[in-house]
C-alpha cells in the first residue's frame, strides 16, 4: 500500500504530460501524412484523364499516357496470383488440415516461411534474375516478374489462410468426422468458406505488396514501356514507371505523380472490391447453397 502512493502521485503528474505527448504525436503524424497525400493528389489529379490511362507513353514518359504500363502491371499481377493462390492455399491447407505440427516438414515449412516473409524484395529480384531470367531462360519478361512476385507474396498468403483456418472451430471437424464425411468434402464445403476472411486478407495484402513492388521487378520484368504482346515480353510495371519518371526523366515529375495517384487509387479499389467479394462469397456459401 505504501509503495503505491508515490506511484499514483507520479502518474497524476504524468497524465496531462502524456495527453500532450499523445495528441502532439498524433497531430505530427497526421500532418506529415496529409502533406504526402495532398501532394500526390494535388499534382496527380491534373494528369488524370481517360487519355492518360489509355495512351502510349510518349517522349520517354514525359507526355502521353500509361496504357501499356497498366496492361503490363495487370499481366504481372495475374501471373503472380495465378501461381501463388493455388500454391499458397494448398500449402496452408496442408499445414493446417493434413499435417501434424510435430512433423519435420511442417516445422521446416514454418521456419522457411518466416525467413521468406522477411527476405527483402531486392533479394527476390536477385533470385528472380538468376533463376527465372537466366537459369530457366525466361529472360526479362512479364512471366519472370510475375513468378518472382509469386514467391514474394506466398508467405503472406499462406500465413493469412492458416490464420483463417485456425479460426474455424474444431467442432466442425469433429462433427464432420463423426458423420463420416470425407476430409476434402469438409474442406470445400465448410473449412475454406469459413476461412474465407483470412484468405481474403491474405489476398489483399498479397496484391497490395505485389502491385506496389518495384525492386523485385527492376531486373525481372524489365523496363520496356511498349504494349506487351505475350507473357514473354518485357513489361514495365506502374511502380517501375514511377521510379523511372522520378529519377531518369527531367520534367517527368508531373506524370510520375499522375501514375502514383493511379497506383494508389488502384490499390484502394482492389482492397475495397476484394473484401466485398470475399464477404459476398462467404455469405452465399453459408446461406444459399
Amino acid at each position, binding site marked *: 500500500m505504501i509503495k503505491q502512493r508515490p506511484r499514483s502521485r507520479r502518474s497524476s503528474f504524468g497524465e496531462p504530460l502524456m495527453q500532450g505527448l499523445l495528441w502532439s504525436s498524433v497531430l505530427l503524424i497526421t500532418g506529415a501524412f496529409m502533406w504526402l497525400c495532398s501532394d500526390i493528389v494535388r499534382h496527380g489529379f491534373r494528369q488524370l484523364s481517360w487519355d492518360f490511362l489509355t495512351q502510349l507513353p510518349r517522349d520517354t514518359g514525359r507526355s502521353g499516357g500509361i496504357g501499356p504500363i497498366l496492361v503490363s502491371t495487370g499481366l504481372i499481377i495475374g501471373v503472380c496470383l495465378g501461381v501463388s493462390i493455388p500454391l499458397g492455399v494448398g500449402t496452408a491447407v496442408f499445414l493446417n488440415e493434413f499435417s501434424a505440427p*510435430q512433423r519435420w516438414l511442417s516445422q521446416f515449412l514454418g521456419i522457411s516461411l518466416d525467413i521468406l516473409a522477411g527476405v527483402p524484395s531486392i533479394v527476390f529480384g536477385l533470385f528472380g534474375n538468376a533463376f527465372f531470367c537466366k537459369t530457366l531462360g525466361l529472360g526479362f519478361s512479364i512471366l519472370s516478374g510475375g513468378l518472382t512476385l509469386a514467391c514474394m507474396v506466398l508467405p503472406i498468403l499462406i500465413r493469412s489462410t492458416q490464420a483463417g483456418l485456425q479460426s474455424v472451430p474444431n467442432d466442425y471437424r*469433429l*462433427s464432420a*468426422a*463423426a*458423420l463420416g*464425411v*470425407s476430409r476434402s*468434402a469438409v474442406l470445400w464445403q465448410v473449412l475454406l468458406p469459413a476461412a474465407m476472411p483470412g484468405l481474403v486478407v491474405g489476398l489483399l495484402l498479397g496484391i497490395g505488396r505485389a502491385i506496389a513492388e518495384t525492386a523485385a521487378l527492376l531486373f525481372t520484368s524489365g523496363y520496356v514501356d511498349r504494349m506487351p504482346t505475350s507473357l514473354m515480353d518485357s513489361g514495365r510495371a506502374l511502380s517501375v514507371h514511377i521510379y523511372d519518371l522520378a529519377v531518369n526523366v527531367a520534367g517527368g515529375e508531373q506524370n510520375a505523380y499522375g501514375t502514383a495517384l493511379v497506383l494508389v487509387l488502384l490499390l484502394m479499389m482492389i482492397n475495397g472490391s476484394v473484401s466485398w467479394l470475399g464477404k459476398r462469397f462467404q455469405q452465399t456459401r453459408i446461406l444459399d447453397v
Partner: protein
Amino acid sequence: MTLISSSSTQKSGVAPAALHTEKLTMQYARKVAFRDVTLSVPAGQITALIGPSGCGKTSFLNCLNRLTELTPNTQTTGTVLLDGQNIQAMELIQLRRRVGMLFQKPNPFPLSIYRNLEFPLQEHGIGQRDRVAQIIEINLRRVGLWEEVKDRLKSPALALSGGQQQRLCLARTLALNPEVLLMDEPCSALDPISSEVVEALIDRLRGDYTVLVVTHNLAQARRIADRVALFWMEDTVGKLIESGSGQELFESPQHPLTQAYISGKRG
C-alpha cells in the same frame, strides 16, 4: 411437398446393432483415461453412462467410433465389437456412418439448415434431389423441428437457438440411418425446456436405435435408461464399477460406490 404420414416418421430399414467392449483401455501420452472396460450395450435399448466428471466416460464414448484417433498420442487396446464385428477392421467412414454421435455442445456446420443435412447425405452417396429432400423432411419431423423451420430452410443453422441446434444435429445424425447413437451429455448445454424436449426425443428413439448416453443427470438416467453403467475414478484411472438394468442399479446397487453415488453422498 407432400405431407408425410406420421407412420413414415418411424424408422425403417437397418436394425439396431449391439455393441460390446472387451477389456477396452485407452491412454493419452501420459495418462490412462480408463482401463479394462468390458461392457455390453444391448441392441435397441438406451444405456446411460453415469459417474463423476473426469472418469473417462467421454473418452470411452469416443473410442466407440474411433474418434480418439484424432487426438495425437492416444493408444487404445482391447476390442470393440459392433454387431459382433471388430471396429478396428472396419472402414472408418462406414463405421462412423453406422455409429452416429451427438456432442455436448450443439455443433451444426456454418451452412444453411437444409445444407447441414444435405451435405453429409451427398457425401454418403445419396444425391437424388427428391430423395434427399424426403429424407431431410422425415428427419426434421422426427426431431420436431420441421414445423419450426420449414419456411426458413435456407437460413443459417447458427441462427437457431441452442435447443433447436441440438435437435438439428440429431436430425443430421439420424438422416444417415445409423445403428448406434452415441450421445455425450446431449442436454447439459441446453436450457431446462430445450433439455426436456431433447430428452423426450431420446426416449422415443428406444427400440429403433442402440443408444449410449453419457449423463451427469441421475434423474434423467433414471427416467430414460434401460440400462445403466457407473464409471469411477480409481487411482487417477477410469474404471467401470457396476452395470445393470436401470431398475437394479438404482433400487439395489451392489457396489458401495454406486450406493454412495446415487444417494448423492459422493461424486
